[in-house]
């Protein structure tokens, strides 16, 4: 998925996450250059659904229906008043986006870490089918041992998900990209 996060001078916060499903979608490109999506893969299919999670029946394919999506643009603001921290987050890579955004929010809002550090810290993601806990390359070995001592089966992967963010505290705004991405960029108007 692609992410776009904007915190503008007009006091609006905008987060957009868009996708084609798989890389290059269906692989079909029209003569005029439009690459077409493969979003039907996000629907649950009956035979694979029933032996895994029966509530997935709500996501069976149907004409005119939108499939279940883990596109999760997320915005945070103070629950009372206007003063305090505003956040704007986006993430990619399917259901790993949910895990990643949760951990970044815990880092910023609970552990009071700054946004840059919160985005750069190692993250984990439980694979439901295999019951394996995936961790990314930034995840400390010490923490992996902690988790294994609690009975988690841990598997290390390079990148789980890219999370970008923007933060506003009063009138100070900063845009931060996930350091795992070589191409992403955050820019701030001063």
């Amino acid at each position: 998925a692609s992410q776009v996060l904007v915190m503008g001078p007009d006091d609006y916060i905008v987060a957009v996450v868009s996708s084609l499903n798989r890389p290059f979608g269906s692989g079909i490109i029209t003569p005029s250059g439009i690459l077409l999506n493969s979003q039907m893969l996000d629907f649950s299919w009956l035979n694979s659904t029933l032996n895994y999670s029966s509530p997935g029946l709500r996501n069976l394919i149907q004409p005119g229906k939108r499939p279940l999506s883990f596109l999760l643009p997320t915005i945070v603001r103070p629950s009372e008043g206007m003063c305090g921290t505003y956040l704007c987050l986006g993430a990619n890579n399917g259901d790993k986006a949910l895990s990643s955004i949760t951990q970044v929010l815990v880092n910023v809002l609970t552990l009071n870490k700054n946004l840059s550090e919160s985005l750069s810290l190692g993250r984990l993601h439980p694979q439901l089918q295999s019951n394996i806990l995936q961790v990314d390359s930034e995840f400390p070995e010490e923490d992996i041992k902690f988790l294994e001592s609690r009975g988690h089966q841990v598997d290390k992967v390079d990148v789980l998900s890219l999370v970008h963010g923007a933060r506003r505290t009063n009138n100070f705004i900063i845009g931060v990209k996930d350091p795992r991405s070589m191409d992403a960029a955050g820019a701030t108007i001063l």
Partner: protein
Amino acid sequence: AAEKEASQQSTLGAYSPVDYMSITSFPRLPEEEPAGAAAEGCLRSRKEEDAFLGEQDTDPDSFLKSARLQRLPSSSSEMGSQDVSPLRETSKDPFSADCSCRQDGLTVIITACLTFAMGVTVALIMQIYFGDPQIFHQGAVVTDAARCTALGIEVLNKQGSSVDAAIAAALCAGIINPHTSGIGGGGVMLVHDIRKNESQVIDFRETAPFGIQEEGLQKAWELKPGLLVGVPGMIQGMHKAHQLHGRLPWSELLGLTANIAQDGFNVTHDLARAIAELKELNYSDKFRETFLPDGQPLLPGMFVRRLDLATILDLVGSEGVSAFYGGNLTQEIISEVHNYGGVLLEEDFSNYNALVENPVHTVYQGHLVLSPPPPHAGPALITALNILEGFNITSQVTRENTLHWIAETLKIALDLANSLGDPVCDASVYHSVEDMVSKSKAGFLRQLINDSQSFPSGINIPHFSMESGPP
């Protein structure tokens, strides 16, 4: 006797209506000493008049008008009774020390000043809340590609709205990183207005074609990739967002984006990696020409132009969304999808609508967290946060415990996410969402987590009952 007459005439002259106005208009006039009983009578009479005038409207204009009307008839009738002089004799002294006409004048001035000040204050407050910002303060843009971030900043610098910047940057992402998104796909936008504390979700996710059948899809999607194609929502989603929050003209926004494709850009590491990982060999000539020119994959940093996309964006910019949903582009997409075994129809495009909805939300650690509603997994994210909030995670709690709680909580949240679907097609999803975002349900789910031991995914998590729906 002459002195007395002169004194009386002077008094009478001062009491004419014209002079009364002078008194009310100018609070400080030369004062004359009151004369005995006459002065006492004036005082009593003046007090009566003041009492009367005090009952009038506090508005200075109406006050003066009513005062004038009160006095004119009596003066003129008495004046008519005099043979020679138009003036009448009076025992009242309007210049007495206690004459409150001067206080009335001060009241008028103070009232006028206060009214003016209040008016200016109200106007300023309205300007602050409803007017354009007078000070261009900070802004930030983050995207997956530096070129698109720069475009977003450029739009903001052109006084475009945040949504304008997001539209341009999102369409740009489809040009620079065509493997992740583009006008042939869809997505979701979350917009929040800080001042009004209002939020909107614009859902432009793709929809299943009317001719789709699950059985056919399962059997043949690998051979017929056309079956995987949903109705693209990107252009309509961007247009809807622009209608709601756009400031720059639509054509200008798409023109700026088209310039990126026209002028060219450097291939990103991410695109190059995606091309390098392509496994299938049966891509069309157009696909190969675009991403594998001369049989070689594009490499990071190579300079490319997408003149084809520039033409489309210029067309949609000048002709509007109808150029995409119903024009030649629709016919071309349908034809191409059919070539690959798909079932898209023209009606799929004409019936497509980007939805505007409210986000789901919770309060986590004193902050309002907003996320998209189903069919997006926002409610599951809310559940995860609600569960974690109850663990009272602090920097004092061991990292070991925190990581274990997060892992176990995410298992529950991800499992619950699989119970979601499109509520438009299955209203029971709404009931599940209500349950999922409630703090009490989170408390119940938190109790299922064993602090010292991991539990297998999907076990012991109570799913929400299904009350209706096609299955």
